[in-house]
């Protein structure tokens, strides 16, 4: 029989991590994601699977503990919310420079500064455009349900090790806190130390006679060599752009108007599509699931089909820049967002789309 439970988003990703064979979690409490650490502690993971859970003294320490564990080839993760993720940027940049796999969760709250504890999507730029120093990208997954919070733990670890890259689950306070039905799969065993030595030949696990030393460093004082390292990194990001794009389309086949939204905003838009269809408006939704790599091609394909694109974000407009890059000026693109921790309502966003593209008709295509 299927194991189905009612869970909070934050609990679901914690359970997902345990079942995905996670070896270590290092984190520091912050609303609205403290349930991750609380759930792991309450679940006695050490006894259950051997997974180590440690409350660190800060997010700075957490991310560097992750850096240490990842360098030794283990499946490690941390979670936080916006101010804490800002503190982690140093460690994320070091992991980018050393190509270490890890899973990061940002349950985004409103900013800037201490902001609010309510849900927000204002950390898109930080996650997608490289929040720390240097030229790097992370794979960014945007869950829109509690089920996806659960699923993205395993998917995140698998992508992280496949590409030796940091994977960030970019969630928000609403997805983290809300309760939904989750279908759980079987527990996947953690890797043994022997398996790690065999599989991750790059990991610093202690130099044995039969191999060269493994050095995990992002430093090369020789600029010529550093450029080669950077080019290699870029080549990896290009490959990820080609192979790992994920998105969902809802009622796009005959759509004349399109919402583009991720995460909580996509949930709102999904309802708005229903409301619009009931009114006879042919509207669809494109939901990017990977924010890096962004589904530029799908955006462009749909841009050729529709009369207007309405982006909905709980921010002042961040993802819209990527949408516009994909649209290449083919059709009008408008932003609508709520700030400071407010989630827009479905009729509100439908009304905006109607105002912008149907009533005003300013973006009607001429050809």
């Amino acid at each position, binding site marked *: 029989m299927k194991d189905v439970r009612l869970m909070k988003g934050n609990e679901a990703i914690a359970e997902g991590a345990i079942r995905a064979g996670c070896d270590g979690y290092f984190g520091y409490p912050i609303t609205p994601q403290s349930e991750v650490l609380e759930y792991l502690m309450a679940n006695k993971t050490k006894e259950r699977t051997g997974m180590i859970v440690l409350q660190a003294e800060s997010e*700075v320490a*957490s991310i*560097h503990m992750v850096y240490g564990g990842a360098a*030794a080839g283990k499946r490690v993760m941390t979670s936080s919310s916006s101010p804490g993720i800002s503190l982690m940027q140093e460690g994320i940049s070091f992991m980018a420079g050393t190509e270490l796999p890890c899973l990061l969760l940002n349950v985004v709250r409103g900013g800037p500064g201490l902001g609010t504890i309510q849900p927000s999507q204002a950390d898109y730029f930080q996650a997608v455009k490289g929040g720390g120093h240097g030229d790097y990208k992370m794979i960014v997954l945007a869950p829109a349900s509690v089920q996806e919070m659960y699923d993205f733990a395993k998917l995140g670890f698998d992508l992280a090790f496949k590409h030796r890259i940091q994977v960030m689950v970019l969630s928000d306070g609403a997805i983290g806190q809300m309760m939904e039905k989750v279908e759980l799969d079987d527990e996947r065993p953690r890797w043994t130390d022997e398996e790690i030595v065999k599989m991750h030949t790059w990991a610093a696990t*202690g130099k044995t006679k039969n191999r060269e030393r493994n050095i995990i460093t992002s430093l090369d004082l020789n600029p010529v060599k550093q450029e080669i390292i950077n080019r290699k990194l870029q080549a990896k990001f290009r490959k990820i752009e080609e192979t790992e794009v994920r998105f969902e389309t809802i009622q796009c086949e005959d759509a004349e108007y399109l919402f583009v939204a991720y995460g909580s905003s996509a949930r709102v838009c999904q309802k708005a599509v229903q409301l619009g269809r009931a009114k006879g408006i042919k509207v669809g939704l494109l939901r990017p699931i990977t924010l890096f790599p962004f589904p530029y091609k799908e955006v462009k394909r749909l841009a050729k089909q529709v009369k207007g694109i309405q982006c909905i974000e709980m921010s002042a407009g961040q993802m819209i820049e990527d949408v516009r890059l994909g649209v290449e000026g083919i059709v009008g693109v408008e932003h609508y967002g709520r700030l400071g921790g407010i989630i827009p309502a479905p009729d509100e966003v439908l009304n905006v789309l109607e105002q912008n593209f149907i009533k005003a008709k300013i973006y009607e295509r001429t050809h």
Partner: protein
Amino acid sequence: MSAPTREDICQLENEVYSRTTLLTPAPLSYCPGCGHGTAHRLIMEVVEEMNLQADTIGVAPVGCSVLAYDFMDIDMQQAAHGRAPAVATGIKRLYPNKFVFTYQGDGDLAAIGTGETIHACNRGENITIFFVNNGIYGMTGGQMAPTTLPNMKTSTSPFGRDVETMGYPLKITELIANLPGTYFVSRQSVHTAANVRKAKKAIEKAIQYQKLKKGLCFVEIVSNCNSGWKMTPLDSNKWMEENMFPFYPLGDIKVPK
């Protein structure tokens, strides 16, 4: 009898000392006379003597010893400035039976990394910290460190450290020795043969004790920075004895009961 030739002397039966095999052939990047090189050698000698190479993971800091991994023939990870104790925590928690150590300077350990240092000590992480205290930021060109002595001149305290405005030197080793999570805490130096022998004993203990899983082992090495102090190596050692040792007295600070 004629004087013995070099070939006569360089015979295996005459060997009294050899370089540890756990130092790589790479020439050390340290200034001549700097204590970092000797500290590296001692640690690697002990790792070799205890046959720990395959079980050792070292964490290098940001500072002059950032390239420690070029010289120590073991698996190593380079940490961000001050974060080595957190990195080592991550490794050790996941590999409780490996020998995990950090090697850090005073700016790294006692300024930017104070939080990571104190909390790793206080949690009683079963790691070993080697702390090279030269009272200055060597790598960046001789700026004031948390351990710079009162009135000591550095490039950012050109008229001497004024404790009224720049604060007092931090005796972090005494501080962490007070925490229940530390098991063995010792302060040594490596500027004379006798001190090298004592320092090696302390390093041996700090490595040996990690196996007991009774808490963090910490060895401070008070060292010179002749470049940063703007002295010859000999003068810097003399200055160290006269000025650093009275403030940072050598010897064991916390030993197991």
